C-alpha cells in the first residue's frame, strides 16, 4: 500500500488517461461536452497528481517503492511538480489545436502517459525501470509528433522514431555495460561498485558512460545527438514542440543527473565525464547559437536555441564532478535552470502559437509589427525572449547566473566565458524577433487577441518568469533540496 501511495502521482495520471480514452469511446457524449471532456479530465488528473505529490511532502512519505525500483525524494518530487505543471500548460495550449481534431482524447491521454514516463525518469533508481520510463515517454512522443498526419508532421515523426531507436540502442548498450561490470541494475549498487573499482575497469566504465551520455544526449538534444531537433520541432504541432523542448529535455537531464551523479559521481571516471560534458556543452552552445542566427522559421530558431540552452545546462553538469565539494552546486544549478527554462520556453512557444494562429505563418519575417496588432502578446513574447537571452531581472538570468557560478566555483572559468559569450550571440537572434515585432510595419493593421486558454497559459508563464526573476529564493531552495538527495 505504501508502494501504491508513493506511486500515486503517476497512478492518478494513468487512471485519468485510461478514463479519457475509454470514456471517449463508450460514453454517449455529444458536441461541447464531448469536446471538453478530455481536456477537463486531463487537467483534473494533473491536479490530482500534483496534489498527491504535495500530500507526499506534507506526510513526509519520502522513501523507496517497489523494492527499490522507484524512489520518492525531493528530486523526484521537484520534477513531479515541474512535469505536471508543464503538461497542464501544454494541454491549455493545445485547446485550439484540438478543436479541429477528432483525436482529442488520444492526444490528451498521450500527454498524460508521457508525463508519467517523465516523472518516472526522474523517480526511478534502477536501470531497468529507467529504461522502461524512457520508452514510455519516447513512444508517447513519437505519436504526438505525428499528430497532424500531414507530410511534414509524419516525416518528423519518422525521423524522430528512427533516431530515437538509435538512441535507445545506445542507452541500452551503456546500461548493459554498467550491469555487466557491477552485476546490479540498481544505481546505488553501481555507485558502490564504481567507488571501489580499480583503474583497470576505467576503459569499460568510460564506454558505458559515453554510450549512456549519447543515448540520453538525444533526449537532452545536445551536439552531436541533436540533429533531429530542427526538423522535428518544425514539423510537429507547435504545442508538442513546446512540450518536447521543455519537458522531454528536462526529463533527459533528470535521468542524466540521477545516473551520472549518483552512480558515476564518486570515484574513477567522474572527471572523465565531467570533461566530456564540458566539451559537449561548449560545442552545443556555440553550434546551436550560430546555427540559430540564420533561421527564418521561428520554430526552427527556437529548436536551435534549445540546443544551445541545453549546452548551457550541461555546464552545470560538467561542474558537478569537476570538483567534488561543489557537486551539489552544479546539480542544483541545473535543476534551477530547468525550472526557469520551463517558464521561459513555454511562454515563448505559447506566444508563438497564439501569434502564428492569427498570422498563419511561422516565418520570423511575418512577425513584423505584431506589437501594434497585439501589444500584450508581443510584450509577453519579448519577456520570454529576453529571459532566454539572460537579461535580468527575468528568470532566465538567474538560471544562467547559477550555472556560471557553479562553473566558476568548479574551476571552469573558460567554460563560463564561452557561456557568456554565447549569450551575446544569442542576443542577436532573440532580440531580432523583438525588433521585428516593434520596429517594423505590420502587413495588416488588424488587431488580435489570443484565445482565453492561451492567454491564461501565457500569463502564468510570464508572471512566473518575472516573479522568479525578482525573487528567485523559493525556486532556488526547492532545487537545492532536490539536488541534495543526489549527494
Amino acid at each position, binding site marked *: 500500500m505504501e508502494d501504491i501511495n508513493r506511486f500515486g502521482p503517476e497512478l492518478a495520471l494513468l487512471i485519468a488517461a485510461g478514463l479519457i480514452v475509454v470514456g471517449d469511446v463508450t460514453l454517449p457524449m455529444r458536441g461541447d461536452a464531448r469536446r471538453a471532456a478530455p481536456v477537463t479530465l486531463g487537467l483534473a488528473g494533473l491536479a490530482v497528481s500534483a496534489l498527491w505529490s504535495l500530500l507526499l511532502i506534507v506526510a513526509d512519505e519520502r522513501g523507496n517503492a517497489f523494492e527499490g525500483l522507484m524512489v520518492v525524494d525531493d528530486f523526484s518530487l521537484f520534477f513531479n511538480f515541474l512535469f505536471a505543471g508543464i503538461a497542464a500548460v501544454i494541454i491549455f495550449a493545445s485547446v485550439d489545436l484540438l478543436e479541429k481534431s477528432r483525436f482529442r482524447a488520444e492526444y490528451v491521454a498521450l500527454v498524460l502517459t508521457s508525463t508519467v514516463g517523465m516523472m518516472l525518469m526522474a523517480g526511478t533508481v534502477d536501470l531497468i525501470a529507467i529504461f522502461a520510463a524512457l520508452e514510455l515517454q519516447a513512444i508517447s512522443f513519437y505519436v504526438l509528433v505525428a499528430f497532424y498526419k500531414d507530410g511534414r508532421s509524419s516525416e518528423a515523426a519518422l525521423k524522430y522514431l528512427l533516431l530515437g531507436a538509435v538512441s535507445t540502442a545506445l542507452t541500452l548498450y551503456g546500461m548493459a555495460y554498467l550491469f555487466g561490470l557491477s552485476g546490479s541494475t540498481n544505481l546505488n549498487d553501481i555507485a558502490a561498485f564504481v567507488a571501489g573499482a580499480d583503474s583497470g575497469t576505467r576503459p569499460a566504465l568510460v564506454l558505458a558512460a559515453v*554510450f549512456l551520455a*549519447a543515448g540520453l544526449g538525444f533526449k537532452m538534444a545536445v*551536439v*552531436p545527438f541533436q*540533429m533531429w531537433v530542427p*526538423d522535428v520541432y518544425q514539423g510537429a504541432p507547435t504545442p508538442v514542440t513546446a512540450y518536447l523542448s521543455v519537458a522531454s529535455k528536462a526529463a533527459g537531464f533528470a535521468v542524466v543527473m540521477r545516473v551520472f551523479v549518483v552512480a558515476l559521481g564518486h570515484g574513477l571516471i567522474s572527471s572523465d565525464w565531467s570533461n*566530456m560534458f564540458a566539451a559537449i556543452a561548449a560545442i552545443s552552445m556555440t553550434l546551436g547559437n*550560430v546555427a540559430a*542566427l*540564420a533561421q527564418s522559421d521561428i520554430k526552427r530558431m527556437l529548436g536551435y536555441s534549445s540546443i544551445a540552452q541545453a549546452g548551457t545546462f550541461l555546464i552545470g553538469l560538467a561542474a558537478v564532478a569537476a570538483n567534488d565539494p561543489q557537486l551539489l552546486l552544479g546539480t542544483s544549478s541545473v535543476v534551477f535552470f530547468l525550472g526557469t527554462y520551463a517558464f521561459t520556453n513555454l511562454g515563448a512557444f505559447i506566444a508563438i502559437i497564439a501569434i502564428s494562429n492569427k498570422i498563419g505563418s511561422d516565418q520570423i519575417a511575418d512577425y513584423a509589427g505584431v506589437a501594434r496588432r497585439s501589444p500584450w502578446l508581443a510584450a509577453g513574447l519579448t519577456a520570454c525572449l529576453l529571459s532566454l537571452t539572460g537579461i535580468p531581472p527575468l528568470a532566465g538570468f538567474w538560471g544562467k547566473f547559477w550555472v556560471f557560478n557553479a562553473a566558476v566555483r568548479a574551476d571552469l572559468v573558460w567554460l563560463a566565458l564561452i557561456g557568456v559569450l554565447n549569450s551575446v550571440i544569442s542576443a542577436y537572434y532573440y532580440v531580432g524577433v523583438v525588433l521585428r515585432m516593434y520596429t517594423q510595419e505590420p502587413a495588416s493593421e488588424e488587431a488580435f487577441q489570443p484565445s482565453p486558454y492561451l492567454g491564461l497559459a501565457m500569463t502564468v508563464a510570464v508572471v512566473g518568469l518575472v516573479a522568479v526573476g525578482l525573487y528567485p529564493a523559493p525556486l532556488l531552495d526547492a532545487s537545492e533540496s532536490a539536488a541534495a538527495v543526489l549527494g
Partner: protein
Amino acid sequence: MMMGLGVFGIVAAIFHLFTHAFFKALLFLGAGSVNHATGTFDMRKMGGLAKYMPVTFWTVFVASMALVGVFPLAGFWSKDEILSDAWDDRPWVFVVALIGVFLTAVYVGRMLFLTFGGEYKGGEEPEHGEAGGHAQPHESPSLMLVPLVALAVMAGVAGFVNLDSGLETLIEGWLPKESEELVTHGGFQWWIALSSTAAGLAGLGVAWLVYGARAVQSDRVRHIAEPLPEILENKYYLDWLYEELFVRALVLGGAAWLLSLWDRYVIDGVVNGVGTAARWGADQARLVQAGQAQLYASAMLIGVLGAIAGILIIDPK
C-alpha cells in the same frame, strides 16, 4: 602657449591655457559679430568699424590686449608666470617666447587696425537677389553683445585676481583640498613683466606703423617677408583666427580623416565582420542539416566514437 608645459609649473600652464580660452572665445564671437555686420571675413574689406560697432570694438580690444599680455589683463599674468619659469629653467626658451609675444602683437595689431581703424571699405558686395547690403554696418543685436561683454569682463577680472597671488587663492578654493600643495606660488619679477610688455607693445607699434598710420607701406613689408603674407592673405582671405583654424583643420584634418577611415573600416569592420562570420557559420551549419536521417545517425555514432577517443587519448592514465 604649448611650450609652457615643458618648463614650468603645471598650474601656470593650465591657467594660461584656460585664460586663453577667454580671449579666444571672445575673439571668435567678435569675429562673428563683425561678420554679421559686414557679411565677410576678409579684413581688407572692413575698416572703420570702431565707429559703427563700439561694443564689439572694445570687447575685441580687451581680448587682443589680453592676448598680447598687456598689464593687467589676464594674459599678462599667466604669460608672466610662464616667462619667469622659462627664465629660471632655460633662458633660450625665454627669448623665443619673447619673440612669440612680439609676433602675436603684430598680428593682433594688424587685425585691430584693419578691421576697426580707418574708413569703412564696404564689406561684401551684395549678391544679386539678396536684399542688400552692408553699406552701413551697424552694431550687432544685444543678444550677440551680451556674451561678448561678459567674456570681456571676465578676461579683465581674471587678470586682476592674479594680483597678490589672488589667483592661486581663487583656484585653491575651487580645487579639492588635497591638491593645495600642488598649486605653486610663483615669484613676480618686474623686469620680466616689463620686457614681455615691451615686446608686446613693440609688436603693436609695428602693426600700427604698417596698417594703422601707413607710415610703412605694407607692400614693402610684404616684399621683405615674401612669400608668407601672400599665402596667408590670398589663399584664405580670412582673419588670423580663421587662418589658424583652417591650417589646423587641414593638417590635423588629414590625420583625423585617416582616423575616421580607421574607425569606419577597421574597427567597425571587425565589429561587423564578426557578425558576418557568424552568419556564414550559420549557413554552413544549415547545409549540414539537410534532413537525412542517415546523416543524423552517423553524426551520433561519430560523436560516440569521438567522445570515447577523446577521453582515452587525452587522459590515458
